[in-house]
């Protein structure tokens, strides 16, 4: 692996080619399993799994959490959890093959690494909250629902872009 780290990273694939592959994968997900892709739900499940070990009583008395892990329900007994593990494996495999595995921080030129990490953490928290609020993230709600013409998913996608462009100028110091 150290060799992979030294080698020069290969350039990214053309976005339309990558998008086409993504679309074919999404189609196969629909054809085979009947539902699309998702990433935020399984993180929720893993979290609830740990919570259920620490405080099962709490899970069993919180209405939102009961369907996931109430009683003897195992929150990890779900196909999307495996899908998420797959995302990690697939991302790693591609990173390895294209020499893009590296302990680095990507950031704008005007902020420090520490600021970037803090902002990444903060943005992640906001994103996590928003994704559960919207009943799905960019993949589960936007990409998957968008492809099968859900009205809510298209409204959601529009909202994501509106929300992002609304604050992008104010927060430009983070990136440019």
């Amino acid at each position, binding site marked *: 692996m150290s060799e992979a780290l030294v080698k020069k990273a290969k350039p990214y694939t053309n976005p339309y080619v990558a998008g086409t592959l993504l679309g074919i994968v999404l189609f196969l997900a629909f054809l085979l399993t009947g539902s699309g892709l998702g990433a935020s739900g399984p993180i929720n499940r893993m979290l609830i799994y740990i919570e259920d070990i620490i405080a099962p009583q709490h899970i069993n008395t919180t209405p939102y959490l009961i369907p996931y892990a109430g009683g003897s329900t195992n929150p990890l007994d779900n196909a999307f959890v*495996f899908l*998420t593990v797959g*995302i990690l494996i697939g991302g*790693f495999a591609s990173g390895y093959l294209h020499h893009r595995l590296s302990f680095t921080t990507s950031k704008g030129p005007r902020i420090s690494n520490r600021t970037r990490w803090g902002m990444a953490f903060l943005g*992640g928290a906001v*994103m996590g909250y928003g994704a559960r609020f*919207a009943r799905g993230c960019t993949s589960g709600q936007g*990409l998957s629902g968008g492809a099968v013409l859900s009205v809510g998913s298209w409204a959601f996608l529009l909202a994501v872009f509106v929300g992002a462009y609304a*604050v992008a100028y104010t927060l430009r110091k*983070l990136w440019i």
Partner: protein
Amino acid sequence: MEQFFSAFPGPLPLQVLFGKTGFYLISLLIGIAFGYALEIGGFGKSTKLAAQFYFTDMTVFKVMFTGIIVAMVLVFGASSLGWLDYGRVYVNPTYLWPGMVGGLIMGVGFVVGGFCPGTSLVALATFKKDGIAFVAGLTVGIYVFGENIDGLFSTFWNSSNMGRLILPDLLGAPIGVIVFGIVLMALLLFWLVEYVEDQMNGTQNRRQYLPQKLSGAGFILLLALFVMLRGQPTVEEKWERIAAVEQARLDQREVQIAAGELLDFIQNDLVRTELIDVRNESDFNLFHLMGAKRAEIENLGQRAEKDFLQRPVNTLFVIMSNDEQRATEAWKIIRAHGVENVYILENGVNGWLDTFTELLIESDPLRGDMPVPSKTLADMDDDMLRYEFDAALGSSYEVAEPELHEHKLEYTPKVKMKVKKASGGG
């Protein structure tokens, strides 16, 4: 293998075909391909993602919308060819306002954090430190939501639920037209964002790979055109595909259940019995079974996709008309849409009344308000109500839900509950 192909049209009952292990293994493989596609698109790098919001690199937009239109064209292409049953595909239910508020929050999070959940996983998998920090934050945000939603915003969060609402319903155009329109719109937007990129960066990149881009655009446009011209399968076509098996079940009377069997299921708490009454409104108002809901035959296709397919797997649907004619017609439509566990009430509402009025009178000859067999209509055999009622009391007659106590009816059990459902949720 034969079993595999006979399971089409998709979505496939993977759990039935390959067991849970096989189902999860396939999910894992799909995830691997998904993660790979995201990584090669550059979604593991936050600066590349964030550049989207400063118009210098529109990769996110291009990859995402290419993914959406490719999947969309393939899904509806497969549907129009009969390989995929769109009615059984999970369509994210529309919760309009909470969805949009969540979207706005996520948009802000995207700019602050530089990732969205899926892409942050790829960043984590390729050891990006900011990706690791993002995933940690993501977990906290999800945790906070789970802890607070029941108290804070649960009313709002569950508001504006429009169920399975799709753009063709909203815009009143056929699916194929919407698909073609979206593809066309996406292609124009691709051209626009490449123009903007060049303006921002002072480059001429939009001319790169021009022949490839144009042929790709032409190809997907052609596929979309095919989807539009071919259209989605009609109820008749859907029925044709299953007619060989299903007509035989009708003819051998495997799906016509006796009144006694229905009554047992109504009283069985493990099964959700949904009674669908397809008679006209005046007959329905005169008398209907307790809990029966009226449905118009014309709307059954839409009802099947929006409602019946969304029910829990332990739902038993029983359709009824006065005799069986209209109910059989309705049964074909509902079955053609891929709804499982659908049965017909044998001899219809008339048969139900034949079975239970006698029994109830026997057990208590003095009870009043019993429908009586009509003399004038007794010989008619064309799905007419053959009983007379004092008043239009609907399900207020005792025979609408007879209590037979120890009396047990003899019948041939026919219901076989089938569990075949595509999974849902993201």
